[in-house]
């Protein structure tokens, strides 16, 4: 876990690329040059309500004057994409972290095979931009519902050319009738070839299953988990149980949920990532450090998620 600088960046461009996907270009009001990034990197975008979301950088990695992210509006999602779509305009200022890369191009690879689904194309767009410019060998398999909903379809076509881009659209009206056959693509292991996949869970699972015979470390996935702020340094704190007055010490490396569980206090819990809302607990008397993605500001006044949220010094729980 590396701390990363958070910069208040200005939206320099808002560019819809499909009905639901919009590209936002961020520039720094004072720095002409930004911390550099390698293809596959992502940034954290900090929303005013405290949500932190990761977005892959889809712009040109050789350009250090701006960061570009592509956001698909998911009305059924957890609210961040919708907020960005509704609120970001040219000139808006929003905190964006310096980039981090969990999905880099493999060093020393002789060839790269990309398998992308829908909005999962974003990190891969930066990767193929990098490779195409240097004339390095790759191929891209890109599937989407239809040509119309496939983000960056035109730029990919231009960038990759017909010999390196294989597009698959699942709607019947599309002329590209071919179906993506992951098993076929990955049937033969080619030494020196690395495979990269980003897309919906069904796609990543299919690729994982089809690549079991590939050498370890040659197949890469970009999976965004709900992120906890990587800069957060947990501190120990005390939890007091309102019913009994018992005080439990929560060490820095354990959650309140874990410690309560260890003391035989069974609490409902599920994801333990601050996402599902199962372990919400009432609290009083204490300054809570909320780190979940479910409670809104009002709920945070008297509830906390025991799996990820912590407290300064101490908190009294309604248990």
């Amino acid at each position, binding site marked *: 876990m590396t*701390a*990363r600088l958070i910069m208040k960046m200005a939206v320099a461009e808002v560019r819809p690329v499909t009905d639901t996907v919009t590209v936002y270009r961020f520039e720094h009001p004072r720095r002409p040059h930004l911390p550099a990034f390698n293809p596959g990197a992502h940034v954290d975008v900090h929303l005013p309500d405290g949500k932190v979301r990761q977005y892959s950088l889809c712009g040109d990695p050789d350009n250090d004057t701006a960061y570009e992210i592509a956001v698909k509006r998911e009305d059924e999602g957890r609210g961040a994409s919708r907020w960005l779509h509704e609120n970001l305009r040219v000139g808006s200022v929003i*905190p964006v*972290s310096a980039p981090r890369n969990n999905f880099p191009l493999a060093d020393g690879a002789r060839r790269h095979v990309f398998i992308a689904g829908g909005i999962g194309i974003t990190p891969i767009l930066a990767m193929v931009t990098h490779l195409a410019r240097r004339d390095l060998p790759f191929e891209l398999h890109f599937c989407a519902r239809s040509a119309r909903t496939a983000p960056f379809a035109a730029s990919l076509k231009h960038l990759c050319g017909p010999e390196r881009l294989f597009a698959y659209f699942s709607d019947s009206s599309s002329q590209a009738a071919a179906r993506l056959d992951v098993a076929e693509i990955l049937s033969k292991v080619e030494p020196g070839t690395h495979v990269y996949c980003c897309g919906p869970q069904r796609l990543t699972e299919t690729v994982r299953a089809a690549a079991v015979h590939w050498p370890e470390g040659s197949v890469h996935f970009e999976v965004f988990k709900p992120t906890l702020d990587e800069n957060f340094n947990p501190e120990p704190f005390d939890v007091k149980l309102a019913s009994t007055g018992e005080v439990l010490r929560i060490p820095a490396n354990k959650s309140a949920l874990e410690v309560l569980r260890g003391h035989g206090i069974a609490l409902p819990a599920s994801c333990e990532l601050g996402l599902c809302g199962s372990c919400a607990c009432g609290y009083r008397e204490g300054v809570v450090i909320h780190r979940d993605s479910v409670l809104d500001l009002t709920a945070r006044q008297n509830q906390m998620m025991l799996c990820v949220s912590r407290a300064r010094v101490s908190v009294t729980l309604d248990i």
Partner: protein
Amino acid sequence: MNIQAKPVGASGLRTKWSDGRLLHIHIAPAAAYEMEELAEANLIAGRGIEGDRYFLGTGTYSPKPDAREVTLFEMEVLDALARNDPPLQASPIKLEPEDHRRNLTVAGVPLDHLVGKRFRVGDTILVGGRLNFPCKYLEELLGMPVYLPLYNRSGLNCRIEKGGVIRRGDKIEPLDDR
């Protein structure tokens, strides 16, 4: 009462300087956020700089109690890093005043000598708390190896005895200790 003549410490020596200046004022709203430069700032006694993370309780070290209401850093250290003095690393390190993440960048003030001492910044009065210690966290944020180069010269954490507005260019003057 002539406190000028009152000696301080067993040695009887006092820390004096004459040309102390406040060069830059920086604050950040929360941990890891970039520092933002201000032309003037409001110091609140016993609390911090209005708008800064250690005033708001949102700093990396906010949960650790300490005199950290306002932090100071010597411009002379930035100059020394820029000429790789002492030569601790392969090449000079160019740090801007916003990079060291202390609030006030000062010149002509011997911060290392001000632990427990009172001094004036403009119309305000600060009291030296403890010397700041470099942290790996800063290294990560900057992506630069500054931990060792900042050892023993990472600034001074202070408490605010008398608040008020400070401005870039303010004089920084010694006060005799009570």
